[in-house]
């Protein structure tokens, strides 16, 4: 992420993720790019994949009813080393006929959930403004090749290579997962998935992507967008402190953390994880509370890097001003316009 908001091209992100080629098995790769469509800043950029033309026709009929579409086009692509590409289109949309009590964001979330659940042949890659998710079945560098990344510029890029196991590799199952402008890429396995999923379903989020990571995108949307909780509280919900630590706190803190854990018990994300979550203006890196997956952060000038491996960062920026390994369960947050990267609650193990 460039904290000053300056946009940059795909070369560095793609080289960095390609350097970690052996961590994946080629059955999934993807990117989220922010600041991609400055000329359509105010429109929801819906990126939708279709398994066949009939699905496309049906969904487009619905889109016409739900949205004013300023522009609709196929996402440019070329032949590349990816498996069975679906049809991927993007639409720059304004919600139509919203009820006075519903916000445009909630409207879009509801419509995205409907598209994902109704047909089984159409899935929304991303639904945020001025950003996009590109993903598919192939190594990430091949997915970048397929979607012709040379054209794109963004101030924040997240990248992911997948090694799917529990569910087959398919285009909708690659990371990042998205709702509105939230994207999540994830390394690990969520052993609490069914407990998390069944909790989120009560709030209107349907998990259809056959991948555990999906719950993270919805959890962030629920906690940060809808309930407006700050990141420090959100990470205490997803990666909470141990009771043995809470019991030793002073009374005020103890009550706060006990209330959080008791209320949001079903959103505790169990299992090893390292996640990079992004939305406009903010990039967050977080690992599980006993740090079973790697995560390392670095800064150079106005650029913030977060990665599973240090070498990926060093490839694109051999010299780093700061480089550190965040503690398990404590988030690293980069905010647009802020020159300081917040290492919330953490004392970084400064190294370089």
């Amino acid at each position, binding site marked *: 992420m460039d904290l000053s908001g300056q946009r940059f091209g795909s070369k560095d992100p793609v080289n960095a993720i390609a*350097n*970690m080629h052996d961590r994946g098995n080629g059955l999934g790769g993807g990117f989220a790019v922010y600041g991609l469509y400055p000329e359509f800043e105010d429109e929801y950029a819906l990126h939708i994949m279709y398994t066949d033309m009939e699905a496309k026709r049906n969904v487009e009929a619905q889109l016409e009813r739900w949205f004013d579409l300023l522009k609709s086009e196929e996402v440019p692509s070329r032949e590349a080393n990816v498996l069975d590409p679906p049809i991927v289109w993007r639409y720059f949309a304004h919600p139509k006929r919203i009820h006075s009590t519903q916000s445009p964001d909630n409207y879009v979330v509801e419509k995205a959930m409907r598209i994902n659940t109704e047909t089984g042949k159409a899935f929304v890659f991303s639904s945020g403004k001025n950003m996009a998710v590109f993903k598919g079945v192939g190594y990430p560098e091949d997915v970048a090749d397929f979607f012709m990344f040379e054209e794109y510029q963004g101030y924040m890029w997240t990248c992911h290579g997948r090694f799917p196991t529990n569910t087959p590799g398919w285009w909708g199952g690659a990371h990042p997962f998205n709702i509105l402008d939230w994207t999540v890429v994830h390394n690990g396995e969520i052993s609490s998935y069914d407990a998390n999923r069944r909790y989120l379903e009560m709030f209107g989020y349907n998990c259809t992507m056959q991948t555990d990571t999906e719950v993270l995108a919805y959890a962030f949307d629920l906690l940060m967008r809808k309930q407006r909780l700050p990141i420090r509280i959100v990470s205490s919900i997803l990666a909470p402190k141990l009771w043995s630590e809470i019991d030793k706190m002073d009374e005020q803190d103890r009550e706060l953390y006990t209330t959080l854990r008791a209320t949001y018990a079903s959103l505790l994300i169990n299992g090893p994880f390292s996640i990079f979550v992004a939305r406009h203006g903010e990039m967050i890196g977080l690992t599980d509370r006993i740090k079973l997956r*790697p995560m390392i952060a670095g800064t150079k000038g106005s650029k913030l890097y977060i990665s599973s491996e240090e*070498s*990926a960062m*060093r*490839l694109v920026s051999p010299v780093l001003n700061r480089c550190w*390994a965040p*503690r398990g369960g404590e988030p690293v947050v980069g905010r647009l316009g802020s020159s300081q990267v917040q290492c919330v609650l953490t004392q970084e*193990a400064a190294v370089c």
Partner: protein
Amino acid sequence: MLEKNKAHEAVNSAPSKTDLAKLCTSPRCRIEDSIAKIDATGLYYRDLSLDLRHLVHAGIKKIELYNVCGQRYIGTSLKGDIEITISGTPGNDLGAFMDGPKIRVYGNTQDGCGNTMNSGEIIVNGSVGDIPGYAMRGGRVFIRGNVGYRAGIRMKEYGARIPSIVVGGTAGDFLAEYMAGGTIVLLGLNLEARQFHKSMHVGTGMHGGRLYVHGKIAGLASEAVLEELTSEDLSRLQQLVTDFSRHFRYDPAQILDREFYKICPGSGRPYGGHYAY
């Protein structure tokens, strides 16, 4: 198509010394004064590993690697008295299963440094990632900076074979988890006055081995106890600190002047009472 078993040619016979220049697949490899120098830019780890094996087989004892960036398993499968100097950021499992060679890194390493190492030495002018020295059986690892989570997990020892890890800085959680033998020295040289190591759950499941620590530790597991150093401990500590200081140009006397305490297992059978019938 799974490429994991892509065949590599076997090394059949030692090529003559005049063919040394042809040993490397890397286009940027040269041999000067019996030292092989490889520019590893863009080199896939398997190709680099093959080059190293060829060189060692041909009798080269000193190798220098430049622009290393993420290549894994450097030093794995090598035996004997070899010296490798690395500049850059080596990838995961540096020196994994290594038996004999000495590796020096100018830069940070990633996870798994010294994984199940049998003998040899790894010296890092920087920090290392998680699980360094996992299941280490022998040899020594010296780290100027910090170690990540689970350093020295499952380290062992037998008789005179006592592996050691010396850390100049601080450590992440679960240091010395499951430790069954070996020595870890935590120097805390980068801790400011009145700061302490934020490591939690240090020594969970420990039932052998020892740590010599300078600086308070945030969370000690119940299986571990604090003790004073015996004279045997002191001489062991002195030896390790002296070597550490030599590698990184510190004054050993200054380091040894600080207060150290020992962490060791409280019992050989910490969970004996947990099972019934």
